[in-house]
Structures are given as structure tokens and as C-alpha cells.
């Protein structure tokens, strides 16, 4: 058991573990809806786009998590606004916004009056997460999980049955907006620990594995959390023993779990079987 406990002797590893567990829980809870509603490309755009806020916050000497959150909210608002234009598909608007904000981030960071490099933010630094970061992540993540559980039925209706949703008075667009904000929260939580690029992995991959196995939405959410936490902690452990980058190792473990899940569920997805749901 030494290989399991030895890495977590030092306090910085305990903080890294906590940060990873928080992501492992929150990302799949939101990610379930991202996967079901086929919004993964929005997650990708959001994760890159928050770099604008990160760069500006860093330049202003403010906690970068606040900057990332601000950029996330702004992207969400602009997305809603631009999406009212029917000539442009949403995926087009998403690509425009994501790359534009990413470009702002790159320009700001490259012009910063310090030697800070882009890689600091793209790949995260889970070993230097502070207690302040953890409390902030806990608050944001807790709020995100609460919102999802409170709106579970609304989310389900808005995602699968627009007609009935309208009939029972669910604002489909409002639900969509809330989901986009939750997505921003996940990116912010992932920023310090796994970086903006791997944030998408935690958002999508555990939920995608769960989607292959689960029979209903609650199962998918719970399984997603089990995968998310397992992959996060497992990846952190592996990265300690292999001396590899924590964020990328977590991403690889998540991808491996997905591959295995995909393989073992192959027979089940043969044509004569019914799809579990959705």
C-alpha cells in the first residue's frame, strides 16, 4: 500500500489530490449534459476562450480564476446574443468566440511585462494549487452540483422534449444559458489543476464513458463521477510514480478508461439491441 500513501505525505500532494477530486466530481456532473446535448465543442471553445480572462487578470495582478470566470460569463452572454442570428449556426458562433477570446489571451500573455509563458495556463500546475484555490473551487463546484440537481428535471425536459418543456413552462433557452455558465465553472475549476486544455477531457471523457454503460440519466451522472474521481486520483498517482505531467497523465487515464468501456460495450451496441436511453 506504500505506493498509494507515499505520494500523499507532503501537503502539496494532499492539495493536488483535493483539487483533482473536486474536478472529478463537478466536471462529469456538468459533463453529462454536455455529452447528451452534444455541446463538447462549446466546452472546447470555452476552455480556450477563458485564456483571455486569465491573461488580463494576470496582468492586473488579480487571481486568474476570477479572470477566467469573467471571460466565461462574457463568452456565454455573447454566445446567447449572437445565436439569435438565424443565419449563423451555433457551432459557427462558438468557433468565432472561442478563437477570438483565445487570441486575446495569447496576445495579452505574450505582451505581459514578465517572463510568464502561455504553457503555465494551458497545462495547469496541480502541484502549486493553494488552499485559496481549493476553497474557491469547492464553493464554485458545490454551487454547480447544487444547480444541476435542483434543475435536473428542467435539464432533462429541455434536452429531450422541447414541446413538453414549453408546455410545463420550462424556458429552454434559460436552461441552455445556465448550462453554458456551468461549463465555464468547470473550466475555471480545472484551470489550475489540469489546465485549460485538459479541462475538456474531464468535462467530456468520464461522462462519455458513463454514457456507454448507464441505463438512465442518474446512473450516467453517478458513473461519470465515479470515473471522474477514479481517473483523476489514478492519473495523479501514476504521474507521481512515472514523474510525468499530472494533467496529461490524468487525460491519458481517462482516455484509457473510455477505450476499455467502448470495447466491452461493443456487443451491447449491436443493431438488435435497444439503446439504453436518449
Amino acid at each position, binding site marked *: 500500500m506504500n505506493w498509494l500513501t507515499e505520494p500523499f505525505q507532503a501537503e502539496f500532494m494532499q492539495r493536488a489530490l483535493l483539487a483533482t477530486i473536486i474536478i472529478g466530481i463537478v466536471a462529469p456532473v456538468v459533463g453529462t449534459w454536455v455529452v447528451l446535448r452534444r455541446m463538447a465543442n462549446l466546452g472546447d471553445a470555452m476552455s480556450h476562450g477563458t485564456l483571455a480572462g486569465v491573461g488580463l487578470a494576470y496582468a492586473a495582478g488579480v487571481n486568474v480564476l476570477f479572470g477566467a470566470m469573467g471571460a466565461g460569463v462574457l463568452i456565454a452572454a455573447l454566445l446567447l446574443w449572437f445565436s439569435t442570428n438565424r443565419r449563423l449556426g451555433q457551432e459557427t458562433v462558438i468557433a468565432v468566440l472561442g478563437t477570438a477570446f483565445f487570441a486575446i489571451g495569447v496576445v495579452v500573455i505574450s505582451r505581459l511585462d514578465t517572463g510568464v509563458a502561455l*504553457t*503555465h495556463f494551458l497545462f495547469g500546475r496541480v502541484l502549486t494549487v493553494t488552499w485559496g484555490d481549493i476553497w474557491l473551487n469547492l464553493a464554485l463546484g458545490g454551487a454547480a452540483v447544487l444547480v444541476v440537481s435542483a434543475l435536473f428535471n428542467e435539464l432533462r425536459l429541455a434536452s429531450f422534449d422541447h414541446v413538453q418543456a414549453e408546455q410545463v413552462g420550462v424556458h429552454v433557452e434559460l436552461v441552455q444559458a445556465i448550462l453554458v455558465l456551468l461549463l465555464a465553472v468547470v473550466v475555471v475549476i480545472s484551470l489550475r489543476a489540469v489546465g485549460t486544455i485538459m479541462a475538456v477531457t474531464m468535462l467530456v471523457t468520464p461522462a462519455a464513458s458513463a454514457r456507454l454503460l448507464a441505463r438512465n440519466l442518474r446512473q450516467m451522472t453517478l458513473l461519470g463521477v465515479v470515473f471522474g474521481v477514479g481517473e483523476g486520483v489514478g492519473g495523479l498517482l501514476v504521474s507521481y510514480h512515472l514523474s510525468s505531467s499530472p494533467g496529461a497523465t490524468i487525460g491519458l487515464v481517462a482516455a484509457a478508461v473510455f477505450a476499455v468501456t467502448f470495447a466491452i460495450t461493443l456487443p451491447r451496441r449491436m443493431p438488435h439491441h435497444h439503446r439504453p436511453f436518449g
Partner: protein
Amino acid sequence: MKSGLVIATVAVSVIGSCSDAAPTTAGERLRVAVSFFPIAEVVRRVSGDAASDEIEITTLVPPGEEAHEYDPTARQITHLEDADVVFFLGNDFQPNIEKAIASLPGTVVRSDLLENVEMLDDGDDADTHVWLDPMNMATMARTAAQVLSDAIPALAGTFANNAATYIRELAELDELFAVGLSECDSTLLLTTHRAFAYLADAYRLQYSAIAGTSPGDEPAAKSLAATVELAAQNGVTTVFFEENLPSELAATVADEIGARISALATAESLNGDQIAAGETYLSLMHRNLEALRSGLSCR
């Protein structure tokens, strides 16, 4: 605000260098390009007053920019091609700049100031911050004086005098460091990145870095844990980080062992504020000495 200032400074220097392209004085001024701050300081000190009349010096890495990964712009490469002399540090310290210099026409005199500098045998991820040993700066000043004298023989005496004055100041600094760091409670210098090997070697300090040489390097968890243990065993009370770079790694180690953190200048680039404050290599090194004496509890 800060970045606005930098953009403004860069813009001004670009405009300045454009108008400089047409020589205004009677004779052609010697066009000298230098790669980054410490080299610029050496060349400026050696050329002295001649700098404004006879020599035009352009620095490639703009204020505040990270020096190692700097990629010269198209305009700078054009400017380099028109230069008479280029001073730089070789040995892969600035790969992009070295590549640009290697592609210059044969008419440009190329001077690698690492020539005559004794390099530490430091393994694969070798530290290249040779200038943090003041006596290496002195060696570079001697080489620069030689190269400039070859270019403008009439000023050889001036260059030799200027170099001698600068070398004297560097020797005084060296003496201050040697005395100031001779009796310290802690002899282990621990910094975020591997940038102070030459300084530590010059003043007989044990040296260890949390991460590798590149400012983007991050240690693996295991090696971070090993660093924490080493710091604890050696009774480290101050973990140093590089000025202008994030302090998180240093703070993480300091946190584990109840130490504090303190900034050291790598003197590879000045930011806008430091330029406005008139900082030089010597002034940065004096502050480094103060930080080291306090952090290592020297008497």
C-alpha cells in the same frame, strides 16, 4: 497599464531604429546588434560615449520579454542583416536568435561572448546564466573591447579604458559577493529554476533548483517531494524565485518547510519599470547580494 507601456516603448524603439537606418553623422556609424540585456550592458559600457557618436546599438529582446525563447521579428532580422557587428551568447541559450544569426551574410561580424568564458560542466540541462558571475561579465567585456577595436581601430584606446573601468567595478562587486557570502548559516541556495549555478559556483554555495532551466519547466511531483526533503535537511529558511516569474513553486516548497520566499534577479531582461528606474546589471546584482545575505543568514 504595464503592457501598454511596453508596447509604447517597443513602438518608439522601432520608429527610432527606422530613422537611424540613414546615418545622420558625417561618417557611417558602426551598427551593432546585441541579443539581450547583459550583453547590451557590456557593449554599452565598453563603447561608452562613443556609443552615441560612432556606434549605434540595438537590442533584439525588447524590455520585459523572456529572453530564452525570444523569436526575432521579420523587421529585426532585416535589421540584423544590415548590422556590422552582432554580439550574442551561443551554446543554445537563445536558439531562435542563434538561428537568425547563423543565417546572416558573411559580411556581418559575429561575436559569441561565451568565447573565453569558462563553462561549468553541468550535464544535459545546463544552466547558461554565465553573467551572474561578475567575473564572467568581465571576460565578456574584454572580448567585446577586442571586437569593437578591430571594427574601429581609432577608438581602441577608448574601448580599452572603458572596459578597464567596467571590469574594476565588476571586480569590486565580485569582492563584495565573496566577502558578503563567506559566513552564512545556510550554504544551500535553493531557487525555482536552474538559473543561479554560476553565481553559486563563484561564491561556493551549494546549489539546488526546484525545476529545470527553462522558465516553463515544472518539476514532477516526486522530485518536488525530494526538493522539500533536501530543503528541510539543510535547514533552508528562504526559497528564492526569479524576479518577473511566478513565485508559486517557491511558495509551495517554502510552505512545506515553514520557510519564506524572496526574489532574485536573473538580470537577463529589464522590464519597463526597471528601465525607468535606471536599473543596471550592477544595481540588480547589489540587490541580489542583499537578498542572498538576508535569505542565507550571512554575517
